[in-house]
């Protein structure tokens, strides 16, 4: 009996030795995102981006296996965010943290990073200030100021003199209002009135009346994606503002691809600026869309968080490569400073000072494709845009 046990032990040991020479170890990556609740689609896009990257680039780096652990954070909740991050680091022993959809959730994780010796790669949360909270944060998404600023120039170039802005009264809305005003007035235009609408406004006809009364040539809008945006765009059409020739400008959050089917024909002609359109014409994007569609199940659900996650995984892979699988957060972050590559959204790089992504911003128009479906068509490119919010600090 004893001998048998010994033989078994030797055999198991040999097996494990053999296995370890093939794959030295497993490196865990913790992804926090909204995988259930009202924002579940954004979380699904995170997952699709991660899975697409791993399907195209393999599940190991230099012999280190990569294991992804997902944790659900349905709505902005910093206390829960911190608890999840702490558990991922302390219990699951992840070497990298990624994801994060909402700004306060990211703010709650940043104080932990130095002690945890863990970099955080943000796939979405889009407020400039996050980057200044910890030297171990890298971001592969965008900021509202970054995507909005080119709009000011575009509006002025198209002969618009007076704009009225209408934004939802919360952080990103105010960011958008400020960024647009700054860029538009720098280009010689004037914002005649700035309306801040309560977040849960459903009836937009009074707003449309104010837009008409203001005598502006165009309206600049920012609302959270979903039913409110739908209501706003519908009101813009139905109250005759569109027919009256009042132009409509907005950041691309409003016409993200997953919302377009619901907006239908009402969206046709809307001008938005953003860092990524699913329709972007490049071989990299074709490969990405194909793999991500397979992961998410339906092409209609794919939108911008997926590309943030895809590029986030690219950054994490590069970090693992640079640290040879050893846990060294500072070395990992240093290794990706200045890193540049061709993303599905176009050429991008990580700014070595701010650790935020530098990327092209595109002007897009919603048009009807040959199959009758609407999509964002890129019509103008603003190359290598940095985050103006961070540049001024």
């Amino acid at each position, binding site marked *: 009996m004893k001998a048998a046990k010994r033989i078994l032990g030797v055999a198991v040991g040999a097996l494990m030795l053999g296995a370890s020479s093939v794959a030295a170890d497993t490196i865990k990556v913790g992804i926090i995102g909204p*995988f259930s609740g009202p924002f579940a689609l954004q979380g699904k896009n995170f997952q699709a981006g991660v899975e697409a990257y791993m399907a195209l680039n393999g599940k190991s780096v230099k012999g280190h296996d990569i294991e992804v652990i997902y944790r659900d954070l349905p709505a*902005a909740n*910093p206390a829960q965010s911190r*608890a999840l991050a*702490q*558990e991922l680091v302390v219990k699951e022993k992840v070497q990298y943290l990624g994801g994060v959809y909402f700004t306060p959730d990211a703010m709650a994780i940043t*104080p932990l990073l130095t*002690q945890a010796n863990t970099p955080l790669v943000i796939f979405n949360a889009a407020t400039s200030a996050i980057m200044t909270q910890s030297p171990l944060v890298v971001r592969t998404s965008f900021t509202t100021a970054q995507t909005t600023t080119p709009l000011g120039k575009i509006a002025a170039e198209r002969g618009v003199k007076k704009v009225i802005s209408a934004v939802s009264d*919360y952080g990103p809305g105010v960011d958008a209002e400020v960024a647009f005003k700054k860029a538009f007035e720098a280009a010689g235009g004037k914002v005649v009135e700035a309306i801040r609408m*309560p977040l849960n406004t459903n009836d937009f006809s009074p707003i449309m009346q104010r837009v008409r009364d203001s005598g502006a040539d165009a309206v600049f809008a920012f609302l959270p994606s979903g039913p409110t945006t739908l209501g706003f765009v519908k009101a813009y059409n139905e109250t005759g503002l569109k027919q009256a020739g009042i132009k409509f400008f907005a950041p691309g959050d409003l016409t993200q691809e997953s919302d377009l089917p619901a907006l239908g024909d009402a969206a046709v002609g809307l001008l938005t600026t953003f860092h990524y359109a699913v329709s972007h014409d490049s071989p990299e994007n074709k490969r990405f869309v194909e793999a991500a569609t397979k992961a998410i199940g339906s092409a209609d659900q794919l939108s911008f968080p997926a590309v943030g996650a895809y590029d986030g995984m690219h950054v994490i892979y590069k970090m693992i490569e640079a640290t040879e699988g050893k846990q060294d957060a500072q070395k990992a972050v240093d290794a990706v400073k200045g890193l540049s590559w061709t993303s599905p959204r176009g050429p991008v790089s990580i700014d070595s000072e701010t650790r935020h992504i530098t990327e092209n911003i595109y002007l897009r128009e919603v048009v009807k494709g040959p199959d009758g479906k609407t999509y964002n068509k890129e019509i103008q490119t603003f190359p290598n845009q940095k985050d103006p919010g961070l540049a001024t600090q």
Partner: protein
Amino acid sequence: MPDLAGIVIIAAVGMAGYWLFPDNLALLTRIVAVALLVLSIDLVTGYCGVATLGQAALFGAGAYAAGIACVNGMTEPLTLVLIGAVAGAVAGLLMGSVMLRAHGLAQLVLSIAIVQLFHEAANKASAYTGGSDGLSGLMVSPLFGVFAFDLWGKTAYLFGLSLLVFVFIALKFVVSSPFGILCRGIKEDPIRVRAMGAFVFPVLLKMFAISGAVAGIGGALAAISTQVVGLDSVSFELSANALVMLVLGGLGTLYGALAGTVIFMGFEHMVSAINPFHWMTMVGALLIGVVLAAPSGLSGLLGTISRATTRGKGGRG
């Protein structure tokens, strides 16, 4: 001395959590903070019969007060808890003086209106509260100058647990005092209490202030341990969730409030880790199950079982 035994059990369960789940202390601290909120609802709903879906207004008042004080240089944790308690009590007085003007359904609607107003105020005053980006940059100094609030969260948890036990002991005195018994009387029959010559409004208002202080301590603890205060801490969702936990545990017993919180949040954490995509169905199933099997909450179920067993033995009950 069943109360003494109960307090020892709470401390023992808390310490068991510390030894058994050393890697989940941030979660356990969050549970303690929410338990304080649930206790505060129990005071007004369970003991006074005033249903509220806006208690997070008081929790948030404590959290933001502590957070703003901390950002402005008052970083001593015990001072911050005190600030949270005072802010919560003041908010409680305010909320009580509005809510107690109405009765029944109108009262419940008022509580929702108040929490929404607090939420909007916190969103609007973004220069102080950070708005929807959250109030960040809280650098809390070490407790007693020695124990830092760090990644592993040992200090935060033990600090929170001590606060919970302390508050629990204080509340045991409150609810068994003549004042507490008067509150129960008001819950049973306010007209009769009034006919006896007692003033109903000031008694209930006093309970609102105490309840506010407890919720405020919870908020301050959340702010200290998370280092960020978000708009979720003054949300209707948090109020409603906390009420669900209270109903799960059982109204009108302080133990029920604690048990409900631990079971609800523990279960939620467990199923959401197992399946981060479809866990909400499991929580829904648990709630439906509890409501069907034990309409008066888990503590009510325990009471029924213990009565049934003693009757079975023919004991004195």
